[in-house]
């Protein structure tokens, strides 16, 4: 037994035992690996170009981009989803990413009137309404305020929304890719509100964007004063234009639509505004014809990113199951994984930072002998919430609520390693 297997006996054995497949086919795979090494590898025995010739100098890449061999790792869109690409969404390639931080250039986009291109010198933020002194801030003003840093996920309320009626899109990029997780730097919204001085009657804020959609949403004052950030940086550098450059709202744990980009104005009031984005949209129609409104929190959710339809299993033997879990209600406490469609579960290994309202990475290191698997993951958070199945959600909500689908995903791994998005019953 290798040192690695000895270090994780539970993962290696328990995962297979759960499905009654312990020990299958392992010795044979070890011999195969030895056979491959019998012929000398020309990549080792012959001098390669990159070993002989000079590569690019330090003056060639003032702002680096990924290797040309990673060109497939891109955001993708689904043209049939929306009437126009300027009011649309694309998807983070979750199946190609690791750890918990999403590279800025791969963070999914959701715009309502395209990307506003704003010179930060021309950007203004106004605070008005029920305040002692309505104020106007420049970006320079905001950058002179005490700063805060935090890592948290942004998930579109409609993430997985196409899957309410069953399996539709074949890949976790499309079923779960309206999420990203970055480190934001900015100022606490409370700092700005204190400058203007909230009047006692102020119970709600309205956030409004500077783009042509003038996106506006109502935000309860308790949340605004608790942990909302106005961010000017993500992952250490200025926000990307498509993420709201030069200023956006960060509303940890709450649906992405509230995270107003290109933020130009905050108005304080004594009641919510009932804007289009909290009436026509981002309300959840239930089976009885009534609708939930102000469903702000994103519940605990998880997905196995590898294997998945865009990342099939390629070899038998040792493999890594990798996935993401997150909750708008707190930290991820545990993730369970099943390979038999939810009959039996084992607890996955969480690795890396476990942060409040942040993506969290989990793994199961396992041996695969080519058997068919129905892979699922189930997240539990610090509030005690356990990620439900899609069927359990549908029993409460029906199939027309569009938003907040955090049901358990099933991937069918076929014996050839190809992996499919399936619905099981």
């Amino acid at each position, binding site marked *: 037994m290798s040192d690695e297997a000895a270090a994780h006996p539970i993962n290696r054995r328990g995962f297979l035992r759960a499905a009654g497949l312990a020990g299958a086919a392992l010795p044979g795979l070890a011999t195969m690996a030895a056979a491959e090494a019998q012929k000398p590898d020309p990549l080792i025995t012959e001098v390669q170009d990159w070993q002989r010739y000079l590569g690019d100098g330090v003056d060639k890449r003032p702002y680096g981009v990924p290797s040309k061999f990673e060109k497939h790792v891109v955001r993708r869109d689904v043209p049939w989803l929306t009437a126009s690409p300027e009011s649309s969404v694309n998807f983070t390639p979750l199946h190609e990413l690791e750890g918990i931080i999403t590279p800025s250039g791969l963070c999914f986009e959701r715009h309502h009137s395209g990307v506003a291109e704003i010179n930060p010198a021309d950007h203004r933020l*106004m605070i008005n309404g029920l305040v002692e002194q309505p104020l*106007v801030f420049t970006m320079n003003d905001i950058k002179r305020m005490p700063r805060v840093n935090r890592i948290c996920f942004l998930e579109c309320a409609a993430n997985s929304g196409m899957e309410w009626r069953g399996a539709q899109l074949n890949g976790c990029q499309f079923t779960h890719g309206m999420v990203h997780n970055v480190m934001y730097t900015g100022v606490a919204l409370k700092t700005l509100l204190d400058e203007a001085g909230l009047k006692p009657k102020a119970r709600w804020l309205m956030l409004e964007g500077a783009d042509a959609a*003038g996106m506006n949403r109502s935000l309860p004052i308790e949340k605004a004063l608790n942990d909302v950030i106005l961010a000017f940086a993500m992952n250490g550098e200025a926000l990307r234009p498509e993420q709201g450059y030069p200023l956006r709202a960060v509303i940890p744990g709450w649906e992405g639509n509230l995270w107003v980009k290109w933020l130009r104005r905050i108005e304080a009031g004594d*009641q919510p505004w009932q804007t289009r984005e909290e009436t026509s949209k981002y309300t959840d129609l239930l089976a009885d014809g009534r609708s*939930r409104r102000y469903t702000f929190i994103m519940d605990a959710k998880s997905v196995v990113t590898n294997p998945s339809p865009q990342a099939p299993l390629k070899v038998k033997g040792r493999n890594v199951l990798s996935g993401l879990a997150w909750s708008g209600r707190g930290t991820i406490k545990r993730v369970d994984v099943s390979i038999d469609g939810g009959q039996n*579960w084992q607890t996955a290994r969480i690795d890396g930072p476990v942060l409040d309202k942040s993506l969290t990475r989990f793994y199961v290191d396992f041996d695969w002998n080519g058997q068919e698997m129905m892979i699922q993951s189930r997240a539990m958070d610090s509030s005690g919430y*356990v990620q439900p199945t899609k069927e359990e959600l549908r029993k*409460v909500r029906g199939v027309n609520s569009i938003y907040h689908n955090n049901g358990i995903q099933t991937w069918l791994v076929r014996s050839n390693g190809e992996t499919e998005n399936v619905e099981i019953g």
Partner: protein
Amino acid sequence: MSRLAKLQVAAGLAAVAIIAGLSLAPAQQNAAHDAAKLSSTKTSPKLGLGRPALPEEINAWDIDVRADGQGLPVGKGTVKQGDEIFQAQCAACHGEFGQGNGRWPALAGGIGTLKADRPDKTVGSFWPDASTVFDYIRRAMPYGNAQSLSADEVYALTAYLLSMNDVIKDENFELNEKNFTSLKLPNADAFYDDDRETAEKKFWVKEPCMKNCRSAPKVIGRAISIDVTPDSKSGPKVD
């Protein structure tokens, strides 16, 4: 120097004076020292950043309209006037009667479909408040030429849309800031605040099942049989 610029300079100087004043007051110095020692966010001392927003600036940007009518501008428009504006500015996407062309949103119809298998959610069938029609048109429509309509035009368009949805019956009806809040949409009372923590209490489970939790599952739906996933060639080009 323009009047606006002069005012900005004056406001900026006033802010500087306030900061200077604070830094000279011994009590404030102690407070600042304590704050630095403990936490600069514990108390709420003013930083003196930003400058007062001028009434003209607030008027220019504060265009939102709330459900209770707060924010409605002075103005008026009839259903008939709205029809003309709608045909010229809106019908290309939304259809002559707000029924929606192609994939563009339908704005009328669908009343009584919310319990149906495929609900038709429009202003008339789904939206709770007429104010949202006014607010959204005023800030975001026409798509690609936002904030190009006058207050009168937005009143007229709102009247036309509510007429298409049978909320307003008389095509000579004139909508204005005074009678606006008397309008009530059919689905106004069908929304309630998030109740997941009670309605979905069963998802808070102390010990979820680990062994023999269900019968052997069967595949009942496959994304590949629907076949609507974009292939790898449809992503954005990266060069």
